């Protein structure tokens, strides 16, 4: 037997198919298809957790996604453990381990329960008031206490071993919710020929028909009709039916996120299956058929285990075959709860009484109750409950006062009516309207291409729901362009028409009371907390929400919002619509990080871009650094070397012999067309007309405001063709910047831009022996100084493959940059290395490149500049043409602030003690004894140990720096003050003779 409360012959599960699971270590039996909640109730377990703030015993309140109480820790194994799982949604699988949360030492005896006694201190807003003072106590005392006390589950510590997938999909009509309305709408849309996606968060279709017992559609019992319709839809080529799939977010332009739970219900899922799949749907039309959520009654001690929504009690009985108790009471303000009593009574369960706070319940249900012999106490209310870990009795009193009568119960089904689910509609930025006659918010003004049908649209009558859904399905299909198909008609009838409903506190929990009548179970917010918030001056529902935290838990107040609103409205003396509704946000229910991340983890988190020579570099022991998405060889430590030693050796070797460097990541743009030079004239500060084919020039690019944007060497390959290089990190934005100007400001120019960054592998060979190394490999280019001087470029062959060979240098040495088509990069590198290594040359990485260029005072854009540095500030005035009538940044450069005296300028710094290496970013002052706050003159931008200079070197931005050459300044550090002398920026080979070697 799968639990003592399982009723033979009731429900829709198959008794032969059972599953075993544990709850807090106790082994229990369930049926296949059970949720954790139904299985626990079947085993007569209602107490499943402790509340968030007061640690009150809590049970299972609902049978669906709205559950605020029954949050459990569900584990498949140590790594596959998830906290805060709603027991009402999670299906049982064989072998699952379920644990209660937020209790210590045990669920039945929880020491945190003292919080309930201390509750006067935990009133609404207590965080803001109680823990204000003393400040120092916050970290040591208050925060750890709050974190321990007000906990939900504990996050797993192991990495998630599952994988998650994601896909984009397009459809004509997305139908959210596969209840009566959703199925009818999907059927009509599909028959009209539209491409339809129908999704539902439950394992099967049917929606409210899961709890229903008397509805007939198309001549069949409602649930059977739903199953048949679901089957028919799933068989259609133009329909995708997704169950266990929640539409969690409605975003712009009909973009809807669905999460499909693929394996969470399986005992041993195939490894290749994703745990969850994210469907990123773009729908031409969306039909919202989300249904409605039943509200609980707000009365004193309404949170004891065993108290649950009436529809949930029906679901457990009619779908799962489980009685929620042996002696069940009903407390309601709505006719629907009567049907729960009828079903229980028919199943042989004792119904203690139906307590109806209305004087006049619906006549049909009243008559039926009489017929079944169920006592109905109309005009009565439940004013209190008893029971420590489960409800034991209810105190019932006539409305308006008088003696109360105690009725023993072991479960109480409650209903205050139904709240249309306008969550997704609200997410779509639709505006809700308040329907005064039924006192509910309904979809009002639509902001996107969507329609609401059925209960979420406030349509109560079954036939009206069906007709509305069929019409919407067909209209949506037609509007999306579908042209085929036959019209669908369906008839349906309910067992009973429903009336009634109320919001806010019931009798005995009203304005003059201080009882604990919960409205938000997950955040332990009571009716009196809302009133306190109003008394404390919160008049906006947004403020009341934040002050009380009502509706701010992970259930987003699916049960509590309307109650909170009604109580606030009453306290404020306003109508409900005048108080306003808070906005619903995505996601509708919590979504795992795994699904949000989906494929983007591990090697797919971000592309790791590797150069054609990467494998060689790896094989030769290179350490790599990330530059943008690129992996760049940083330095090549030899046996026993640390980074400092390796870089010192590489620096020395390049200047003494030569070095080989992978410069492939430099951005490259081919600028081609008859107006290419004209265009570059506008994009760079330099002039390009006079650059002859075969020659190169260092160029500076500004933004319009006059600040340096990028730099690089540009080679002219032909009259109409330039080979532009950019910084590694700047490649994409420089191309974007150039395209922007070309397309929108200078569209008359005949020139086109093409990224060639990845077409070319670039091997820099730098040092006195550079020419000797490459000369025998090169064909068709005279490498002599006379024929191929510094800043030349030529096309020829190297190692038998085409090359664009640059004579240029970022080291100050004789240097070449060998560009070859990328697939040849590694082979040409190896050929160069085969010549270089025997000569004593080294391979060097980006760190050595940085030191060598700093020794020569060459700047790195983004390191020595920060978006507020002009060419003049950087000592590059020579690169700014004074003859050109226009270039980007020409006007910016003459802005008053940019020509002002005393701007920060790039200079060199030499520490008085040559062994001291400054910290990059360190601040610079003139007077080390000035009281704080000191006048900061600037900061260190680049700082290295230079083995070639035998001392430290640094570059810095210093106010009025170029006028301070020779001055002593100070760099105050935490433990000492370092004296420095301002110098020019060139530390090595000041005459620059080595370039021309």
């Amino acid at each position: 037997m799968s639990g003592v409360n399982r009723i033979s012959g009731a429900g829709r599960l198959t008794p032969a198919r059972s599953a075993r699971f544990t709850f807090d270590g106790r082994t229990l039996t369930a049926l296949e298809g059970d949720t954790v909640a139904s299985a626990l109730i079947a085993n007569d377990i209602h107490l499943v957790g402790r509340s968030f703030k007061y640690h009150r015993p809590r049970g299972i309140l609902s049978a669906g996604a709205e559950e605020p109480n029954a949050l459990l820790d569900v584990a498949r194994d140590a790594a596959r453990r998830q906290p805060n799982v709603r027991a009402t949604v999670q299906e049982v699988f064989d072998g699952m381990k379920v644990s209660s949360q937020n209790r210590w030492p045990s669920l039945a005896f929880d020491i945190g329960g003292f919080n309930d006694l201390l509750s006067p201190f935990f009133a609404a807003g207590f965080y803001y008031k109680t823990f204000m003072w003393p400040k120092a106590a916050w970290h040591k005392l208050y925060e750890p206490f709050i974190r321990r006390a007000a906990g939900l589950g504990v996050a797993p510590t192991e990495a998630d071993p599952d994988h998650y997938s994601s896909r984009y999909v397009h459809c004509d009509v997305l139908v959210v919710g596969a209840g009566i309305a959703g199925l009818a709408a999907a059927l009509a849309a599909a028959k009209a020929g539209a491409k339809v996606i129908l999704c539902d968060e439950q394992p099967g279709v049917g929606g409210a028909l899961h709890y229903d017992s008397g509805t007939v559609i198309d001549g069949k019992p409602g649930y059977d009709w739903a199953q048949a319709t679901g089957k028919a839809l799933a068989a259609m080529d133009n329909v995708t039916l997704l169950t266990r799939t929640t539409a969690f977010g409605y975003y712009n332009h009909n973009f809807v996120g669905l999460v499909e739970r693929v394996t969470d219900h399986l005992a041993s899922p195939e490894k290749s299956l994703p745990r969850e799949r994210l469907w990123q749907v773009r729908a031409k039309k969306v039909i919202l058929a989300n249904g409605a959520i039943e509200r609980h009654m707000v009365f004193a001690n309404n949170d004891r285990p065993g108290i649950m929504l009436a529809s949930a009690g029906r679901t457990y009985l009619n779908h799962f075959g489980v009685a929620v108790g042996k002696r069940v009471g009903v407390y309601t303000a709505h006719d629907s709860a009567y049907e729960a009593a009828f079903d229980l009574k028919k199943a042989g369960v004792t119904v203690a009484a139906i307590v109806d706070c209305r004087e006049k319940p619906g006549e049909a249900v009243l008559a039926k109750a009489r017929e079944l012999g169920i006592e109905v106490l109309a005009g009565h209310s439940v004013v209190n409950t008893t029971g420590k870990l489960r409800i034991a009795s209810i105190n019932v009193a006539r409305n308006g006062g008088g003696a109360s009568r105690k009725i023993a119960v072991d479960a109480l089904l409650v209903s205050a009516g139904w709240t249309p689910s306008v969550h997704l509609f609200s997410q779509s930025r639709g505006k809700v309207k308040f329907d005064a006659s039924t006192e509910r918010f309904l979809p009002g003004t639509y902001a996107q291409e969507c329609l609401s049908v059925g209960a979420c649209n406030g349509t109560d009558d079954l036939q009206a729901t069906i007709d509305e859904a069929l019409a919407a399905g067909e209209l949506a299909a037609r509007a999306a362009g579908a042209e085929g198909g036959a019209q669908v008609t369906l008839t349906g009838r309910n067992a009973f028409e429903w009336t009634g409903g109320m919001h806010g506190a019931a009798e005995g929990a009203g304005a003059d009371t201080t009882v604990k009548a919960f409205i938000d179970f997950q955040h332990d917010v009571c009716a009196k907390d809302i009133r306190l918030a109003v008394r404390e001056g919160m008049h906006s529902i947004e403020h009341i929400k934040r002050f009380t935290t009502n509706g701010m838990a992970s259930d987003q107040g699916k049960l509590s919002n309307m109650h909170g609103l009604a109580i606030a409205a009453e306290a404020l003396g306003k109508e409900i619509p005048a108080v306003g509704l808070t906005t619903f946000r995505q996601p509708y229910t919590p979504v795992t990080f795994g699904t949000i991340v989906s494929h983007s983890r591990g090697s797919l988190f971000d592309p790791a871009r590797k150069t054609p020579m990467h494998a060689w570099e790896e094989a030769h022991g290179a350490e790599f650094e990330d530059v943008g998405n690129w992996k760049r060889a940083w330095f090549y430590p030899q046996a026993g070397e640390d980074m400092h030693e390796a870089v010192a050796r590489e620096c020395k070797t390049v200047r003494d012999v030569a070095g080989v460097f992978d410069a492939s990541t430099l951005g490259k743009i081919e600028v081609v067309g008859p107006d290419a030079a004209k265009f570059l004239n506008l994009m760079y500060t330099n002039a390009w007309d006079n650059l002859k084919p075969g020659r190169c020039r260092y160029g500076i690019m500004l933004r319009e405001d006059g600040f340096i944007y990028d730099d690089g060497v540009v080679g002219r390959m032909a009259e109409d063709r330039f080979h532009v290089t950019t910084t590694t990190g700047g490649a994409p934005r420089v191309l974007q910047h150039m395209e922007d100007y070309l397309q929108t400001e200078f569209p008359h120019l005949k020139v086109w831009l093409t990224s060639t960054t990845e077409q070319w592998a670039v091997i820099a060979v730098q040092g006195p022996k550079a020419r000797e190394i490459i000369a025998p490999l090169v064909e068709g280019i005279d490498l002599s100084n006379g024929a191929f001087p510094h800043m030349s470029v030529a096309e020829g062959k190297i190692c038998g493959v085409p090359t664009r060979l640059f004579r240029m240098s970022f080291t100050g040495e004789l240097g070449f940059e060998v560009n070859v088509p990328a697939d040849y990069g590694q082979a040409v590198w190896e050929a160069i290395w085969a010549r270089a290594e025997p000569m004593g040359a080294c391979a060097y990485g980006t760190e050595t490149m940085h030191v060598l260029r700093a020794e020569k005072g060459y700047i790195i854009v983004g390191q020595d500049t920060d978006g507020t540095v002009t060419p003049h500030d950087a000592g590059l005035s020579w690169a700014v043409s004074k003859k050109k009538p226009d270039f980007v940044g020409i006007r910016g450069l003459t802005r008053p602030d940019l020509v002002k005296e005393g701007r920060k300028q790039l200079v060199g710094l030499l520490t008085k003690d040559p062994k001291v290496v400054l910290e990059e970013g360190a601040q610079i002052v003139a007077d080390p004894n000035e009281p704080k706050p000191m006048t900061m003159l600037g900061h260190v931008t680049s700082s290295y140990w230079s083995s070639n200079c035998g001392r430290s070197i640094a570059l810095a931005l210093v106010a009025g720096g170029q006028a301070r050459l020779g001055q002593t300044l100070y760099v105050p550090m935490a433990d000492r003050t370092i004296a420095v002398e301002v110098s020019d920026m060139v530390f090595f080979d000041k005459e620059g003779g080595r370039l021309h070697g």
Partner: protein
Amino acid sequence: MLLIYCPYCEEERSELEFRNGGDAHIARPTNMAEISDEEFEAYFFLRDNPKGVIFERWRHVHGCGRFFNAARDTISDRFLTTYKAGEPKPDLNEKPKTGAEVETYEALEGAAQ
């Protein structure tokens, strides 16, 4: 995620393929070197940041690569129209090319009868 009609690709595409380019119809002065500080400030720094319709530039950077202009409602994110770079600012009182009126359920219900 927005759906943007590219006037060059003649198709609606996901926002992922596009990059916003700030306000449209701000022409770079042809006599740039001569403009006053105030003119430069107005050209480069000052923007309206309207609540409502904005004319803005987009680039279909991961598509056709073209810059184009759009009129978008900054409240609803609805695109009133998109048009090619260089075309004049459209008159929004004319019937928009894209972004038809949203059909409310009530309107559809009326149409159904």
